[in-house]
């Protein structure tokens, strides 16, 4: 089973690179949805079955795989944009950076004092790589929607690490965290809408009226 889990984690890391390389927003949103579904399947593969686990799986797939992508693609439709244009750093350089970060996260995870039963799994490197990809998207993209996607990828990275501890996290806390994420993205979607109405663009580099003179 852990072999399958590792293969899925490799897929998660590949999706990271796909997202760094594409300019089409709808494509990125689908990719992040697939990533969310994989995150939902993973806990069932490494922990024995329980109702707690089934609930988490259903919750993650519903929230990250369906509802959140729906919110974001809604915002994309309303703002009427299809592509991320001119990121602060181009696609090829960020893609290369992403690859370097992924390699580094493997090297770094080697050094971490992990519990012996987690040493051979890919969870920790995948988590760090996804987290860093999220940061890369957050800092290099201009469009507000790309930044939301970056935030989601970062959250996914944190979730991958959390999967090691699924048993420890009470259902209430997990449900609360998912719900907060959901509402957060919902509010961000509304804000994006207002940004596009106010500035007739969702380019966040235009948001610079507020600064120190």
């Amino acid at each position, binding site marked *: 089973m852990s072999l399958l889990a590792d293969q899925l984690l490799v897929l998660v890391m590949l999706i990271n690179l796909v997202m760094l390389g594409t300019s089409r927003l709808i494509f990125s949103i689908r990719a992040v949805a697939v990533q969310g579904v994989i995150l939902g399947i993973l806990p069932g593969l490494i922990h024995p079955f329980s109702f707690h686990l089934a609930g988490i799986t259903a919750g993650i797939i519903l929230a990250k795989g369906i509802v959140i992508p729906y919110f974001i693609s809604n915002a994309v439709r309303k703002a009427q944009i299809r592509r991320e244009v001119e990121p602060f750093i181009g696609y090829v350089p960020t893609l290369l950076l992403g690859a370097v970060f992924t390699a580094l996260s493997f090297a770094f995870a080697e050094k971490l004092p992990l519990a012996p039963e987690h040493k051979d799994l890919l969870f920790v490197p995948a988590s760090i790589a996804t987290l860093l990809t999220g940061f890369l998207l957050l800092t290099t993209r201009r469009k507000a929607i790309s930044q939301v996607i970056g935030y989601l990828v970062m959250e996914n990275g944190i979730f991958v690490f959390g999967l090691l501890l699924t048993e420890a996290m009470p259902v209430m*806390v997990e449900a609360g965290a998912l719900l907060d994420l959901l509402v957060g993205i919902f509010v961000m979607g509304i804000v994006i809408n207002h940004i596009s109405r106010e500035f007739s663009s969702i380019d966040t580099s235009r948001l610079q009226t*507020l600064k120190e003179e």
Partner: protein
Amino acid sequence: MLYALVLLPLLGALCAWIVPDNRLRPLVLPLIATIHICLAAFLVGNAPPPSPGGWIWLDPLGKVVLLCISLLFAVCAFYAVGYLSYRQERSNRVLCMGLLVCLSAMGMVTMTQHLGLLWVALETTTVSMAPLIYFNHNARSIEATWKYLLLCSVGIGLALLGLLFLAYSTYVAHHDATLLLGPLMSIARELNPAWLHAAAIFLLVGYGTKMGLAPLHAWKPDAYGEAPGLVGALLAGGLVNCAFLAILRVYQICLASGTEIRFFQQALLGMGLVSMAFAAVFMARQADFKRMLAYSSVEHVGILAIGLGLGKGALYGALFHLLNNGLTKGVLFLSSGNIHRSYSNKTTVVVKGALTRLPWSGGLFLAGFIAITGSPPFSPFISEYTIVSSAFIDGRFLVGSLFLLFLVVVFIGMALTVLPMVMGAPPAEVEASDYEDRLLTVGPPLFMMMVILVLGVWPPEFLVALLKDGAAMLGVQP
């Protein structure tokens, strides 16, 4: 009983959603706030024992924060009725609901002993405040909302990673992974030090962003500057204190571990001094008085962090300052909101002679400035004095002198903005506005100013005992 503190505001939010009339709706706020503060006062006096699972317990640290939040919210609720009567052109449904949901989540922050639940509640406060910053619906406020939402969400995401590291450190140490404060503290000495160290860093960065410690404060001037005065008051006095409580919880675990606390205190001291320095630099020649208040908030979270970083006697000062800063910021934001409303402008270029034009609001703003910069007889003087004197008693001369130096620079910088604002004659060309000082917009901050004065001259005994209990939980020998 404790659950009522969480459920009651939610019920109020539901009411606010149902009430169709824009004039009647704000009345829900003072109604709920009055019940809330009565309940809070009763529960602080007779706290129920910890819940069976140990998840819910109102301990002395939680009590201090709860008192501050409940009082501040009550004052803001009465003020809101007066304020919103001037803003009838805009629906206040979202504002009323957001305030009440936020109150509910803040109540949860104060009473939970489970770090995961604490995180969920803190994130809820972040999200529920976002639409309120956007109340004015213009380009500037949308920009502020976006920065606030994205930076705080990312920051608090990092705090979640820190929590997971903390749980993992118990797992590596062959204990059942847990995030309950009590069990964590009892096994803190056996936790894996490397993971604990990583957890402390991530939690400090995450909650520090939410609290607005420099250099993680980038969202603060924008959000405070663009939000309506009463939202600014709750951000600066409510959310900041909730985030500080989260840092106090991390501090408790670091303290119990025995080894991690040295690093954590050093980090807090460093960030605290950097915050004060940032505030001192940016406060000077700040033309926008709401942004100036934001930098003052950066300064005061710095003071809180320094109090915590010094430990020992300064802890009492830090806890007391939490209360004082929250209430004084309330006075400043509410009165600055009035001034803003009257002049339809928030820069010192236009706003002059507020004391003549608005004797009450101008006077309160001036008194708030005198209090927040640490002048006697107001209570921030006592808490700041406690912190700085404890620094010198412990022989931390460098920290103490820098602290004093920054206080002086901030005082001068703030005076250069505040004094021209309130003194002198109002410029003739300012058009008249429909705003005038009324009981509901001046009474609430005036009441809060009295509280600050009383706390400074004669702090009630129960409060002193409560603060001492709180400091004892942070490792001060009683």
